[in-house]
């Protein structure tokens, strides 16, 4: 069976220890977490965890069921094959020597990214987008010398059905 990336959106009770239950489930059963993003929803009693994981069909089915079995988990959505909006935020600190500055700004423009901090020899760039877009800008900026990167991990929401 082939492994495939899956993106889960998990609604949980907003209580201490819940994230640890989920992380423990993954480590205890040998599943992988590729990225993880947690924050409160509009209802302060509920948090949303967006998680990217890998596995074949059988593993993914187990992950879904095991997650749902946790007492504090309210809902588990697999957004992988659903119509959903998926975004990731990334901050890139790239070295900006005089001869590269213009080129970097052009790339920033093309990707509709933003320069959020400027120094004498660097730019910090903020990019939001899909994984593909983010990978593409990283590839383009690499030759300039990337000093540091931080990625938020994917977040996602289901699209509303079209009227």
């Amino acid at each position, binding site marked *: 069976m082939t492994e495939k990336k899956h993106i889960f959106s998990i609604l949980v009770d907003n209580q201490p*220890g819940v994230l640890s239950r989920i992380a*423990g489930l993954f480590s205890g059963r040998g599943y992988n977490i590729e990225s993880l993003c947690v924050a409160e929803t509009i209802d302060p009693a509920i948090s949303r965890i967006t998680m990217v994981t890998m596995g074949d069909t059988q593993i993914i089915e187990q992950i879904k069921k095991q997650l749902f079995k946790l007492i504090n988990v309210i809902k588990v959505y697999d957004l992988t094959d659903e119509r959903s909006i998926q975004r990731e935020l990334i901050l890139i600190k790239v070295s900006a020597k005089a001869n590269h500055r213009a080129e970097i700004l052009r790339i920033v423009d093309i990707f509709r990214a933003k320069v959020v901090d400027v120094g004498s020899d660097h730019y910090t760039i903020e990019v939001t987008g899909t994984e593909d877009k983010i990978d593409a800008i990283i590839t383009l900026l690499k030759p300039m010398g990337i000093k540091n990167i931080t990625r938020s991990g994917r977040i996602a929401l289901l699209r509303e059905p079209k009227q």
Partner: protein
Amino acid sequence: MELTGAQILMRAFKEEGVDTIFGYPGGAVLDFYDELSRTDFKHILVRHEQGAVHAADGYARASGKVGVCLVTSGPGATNTVTGIASANMDSIPLVVVTGQVPSALIGNDAFQEVDIVGITRPCTKHNYLVKNIKDLARIVKEAFYIARSGRPGPVLIDIPKDVANSKAIYDAPDTISLRSYNPTYEPNLRQLQKVIELIKNSRKPIIFAGGGIILSRASDALIEFSHRTKIPVTASLMGLGAFPGTDPLWLGMPGMHGTFRANMSIGEADLMIAAGVRFDDRVTGKVQEFAKHAEIVHIDIDPTSIHKNIPVAVPVVGDCKITLTHLNNLIHKVKLGDLDEIRKPWLEKIRKWKETTPLKYIQNGLIKPQFVVEKIYELTKGEAIITTEVGQNQMWAAQYYHFDKPNHFISSGGLGCMGFGLPAAIGAQVACPTKTVIDIAGDGSIQMNSQEFATAVQFNLPVKIAILNNGFLGMVRQWQELFYKKNYSWTNMNFAPDFVKLAEAYGAVGLRATQSSEVEPVIREALSIPRPVIMDFRVEQEENVYPMVPSGAAITNMILV
């Protein structure tokens, strides 16, 4: 009126119908113990907290109620972990209350502080740290609800000392409703129609029953289902007693030490109706070969059990009793034809397997452990509650004591926890004071919790311990003999206490049999003594459990006597 945390806990226990608490006092639970002395709960003072949890486990299995433990923080709490893990694997409803250091000290590495909620997260069904006394009554109610509903399991509540001794109004909801926890009891009826169709078309069907039948009290429904459809039944270790061991349709236990006919039936079956099982590796052997000709129907209340180890054709999520009752009603309405005629070739084949290759052992003048279990079965008329330790003793008990009723075989199945049998027997005896309760033990495992013999004597619990004393860690030795060229690395227990004197030291009775002829008189005498008794049977040292399926092999590939 405001109550202290300790009073709230006691009142919550009362409201949940608790009558017995297995526990051990300590600094962080002083307030609870102080309050306990003013209640009418029966408290069984164990000698080690692991014993408290196993005893509560035995109590829960014998009575069908939730077992309750009360222990202190730190080492008291960590000592419960093995017991909790065992109950979790076997889906036994427990509520374990641990004391905790005062809230203000949590995280400071205080004396006897341990993060027991963190430690037990993966081995409980759920757990709680009570941070605010206002939540205490609700949490205890939730804990009992979670422990006993759906697929049961142990729930731990960690209560800091300041919560125990501060005051609040008793505030618990009338009913528990959790938006994130709603077990599915009612099966999908369309799936059940498929099951009926499969039964109609099947020529070699079998039923595979497990602990879920016992937990959901589905034995009667199972018996009716099997008798109506004339389908033979095998049951996992956890399911022994779910179907009568003396019924003509009984196949015996399957798996690594299963009967020849059970394993062969699984190998040949064209339909397997599995209910309340989780297809443990000790049952399936090589999964690709397991029931490979069969369409598998899997009934279980826990969706994670389905498709976990074995792919199935018809998954049915639901309570075993409710599901089997539905199936029985459906069967009423369909024509299954002349079942006596239809089943004849299949049942005939099974009868031949039983005839040619029964469970057996060879008598040679020495005491055979199987013979001891057979004699216990005979002399207790099959009516005793049997607990076991883990290893050869457990397998011989499972093979040679033919359980006719549920809740009579109590063993650490999933975790395989040595030291389980004696405290579990104590718990079962507390639950069923008039029953004969016997722990079938080995000389190795009895030493893991033999301190609980003091508990049995102190509380006049007349449990009987039958030690199949072979001077070895027998099951491990058996593997070394068969798969490690007889290299008996550290399985030879050269030294053991004199178990007769040990019994006497505790103020109980010790008996010994060194020859076959002494076995029956020793058991008879033990059964006639209304006090705890240790029976030391000096059995053949290198006897093996057969049949045996080598680890990872297909279960039809058995080593026979």
